[in-house]
């Protein structure tokens, strides 16, 4: 420290500061910041979930309808994708439903069904039939819940939906996902035993199997049924 600024250095070190705090602003901004993060996370999970569900629906012909997303009033028919599957999109564009051609006989009827199902889903008038969990190389890839819905005309529709808590990135991609379905269809993987877990307040018994893809990726697939 050169001598000519010693005075100011000493003076500034002795200046008493009055701290300023604003509890109201702190709380208000906290809510705003966290609210934005929450919304972003929700959107991110939804986008990831519908991609998974749509891919599954097309690739394995699951026999019913796949849908994810919430707060949807209306659905619109988007058309067919390259695989010939019908695409329905919610009004807010948060949910995409992909149905194989043989599942749609009347587009307008299906669209109405989707809206009714969405309503039932928001009221949680549904029954969880099955839970599937896929882990790749130790990372939770996705959770799929299969729900049973009963429409007002008595029809029963089983839905595959992106389960809550799907935290990992969707890493497999379409090509390896197709391979994974082929491998799984070809035969049982290495039996890793069973375990029990509570899902939505019910005890589910899970059977776990281990598979390997051609590039060495380890896939652990668990399927749980209510006890």
């Amino acid at each position, binding site marked *: 420290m050169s001598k000519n600024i010693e005075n100011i250095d000493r003076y*500034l070190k002795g200046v008493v500061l009055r701290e300023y705090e604003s509890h109201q602003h702190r709380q208000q901004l906290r809510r705003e910041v966290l609210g934005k993060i929450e919304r972003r996370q929700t959107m991110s999970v939804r986008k990831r979930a519908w991609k998974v569900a749509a891919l599954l629906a097309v690739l394995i012909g699951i026999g019913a309808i796949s849908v994810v997303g919430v707060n949807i009033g209306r659905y619109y028919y988007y058309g067919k994708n390259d695989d010939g599957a019908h695409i329905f999109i919610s009004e807010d564009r948060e949910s995409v439903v992909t149905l194989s051609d043989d599942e749609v006989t009347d587009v307008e009827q299906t669209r109405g069904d989707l809206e009714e199902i969405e309503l039932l889903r928001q009221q949680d008038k549904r029954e969880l039939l099955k839970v599937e969990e896929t882990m790749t190389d130790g990372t939770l890839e996705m959770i799929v819940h299969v729900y049973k819905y009963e429409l007002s005309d008595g029809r029963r529709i089983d839905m595959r939906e992106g389960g809550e808590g799907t935290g990992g990135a969707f890493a497999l991609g379409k090509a390896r996902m197709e391979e994974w379905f082929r491998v799984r269809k070809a035969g049982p993987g290495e039996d890793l035993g069973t375990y029990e877990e509570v899902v939505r307040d019910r005890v589910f018994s899970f059977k776990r199997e281990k598979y390997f893809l051609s590039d060495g990726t380890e896939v652990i697939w668990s399927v749980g049924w209510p006890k």
Partner: protein
Amino acid sequence: MADDAVECQLESNGEMWDEDQMLVSAALQNTEAAGRLYDKYYSDILGYIYRCTFDRTVAEDLTSNVFLSAFRHLGQYRWRQVPFRAWLYRIATNEVRMYWRRQKRVKIISLQPDNEEHNSAPSAVDSTAASEEYRLVHKALLELPLKYRTVIILRYFEGKVIAEICEITNRKEGTVKSQLHRGLARLQDILVQRGVLPG
């Protein structure tokens, strides 16, 4: 929940992460960690901006901008080679810089008689006796170029060491030391002229 996430991150990376890095990483996944990060730095950033502007309303507005911007770009943070604390201070410093730029434009407009009184009155200036001393210093600081003012506030009122100031201002050590020295010399002259310091 947040603690679990933090533990997972630690295990998977196998590195010695500091608390901020763990919180930032976890904050991308859950709001609890984001809340902890916010709580940890809110007072520091509000205080820093307040000492830069000496205006409560402005300090709150700019602090809002800092946190909203920081959390919006949190995903990009990991690529920056500065500690999170320094990154937040850097954003805050930029906010303050932009504020003073806007004020310059306001001053030009305020040359018109009708606006003069309105624009020269801060919205919520601290007037307590405890802050009178700082008010004098702050008035003198306002006469310095912003680059000098920033390093002086960071060094003396935020207690930052030179290395931290370098991270915050993105300047080399020699530059920061030089700015600090020149700024102090000029500040001393101003305070001597005003009779605050002996000549």
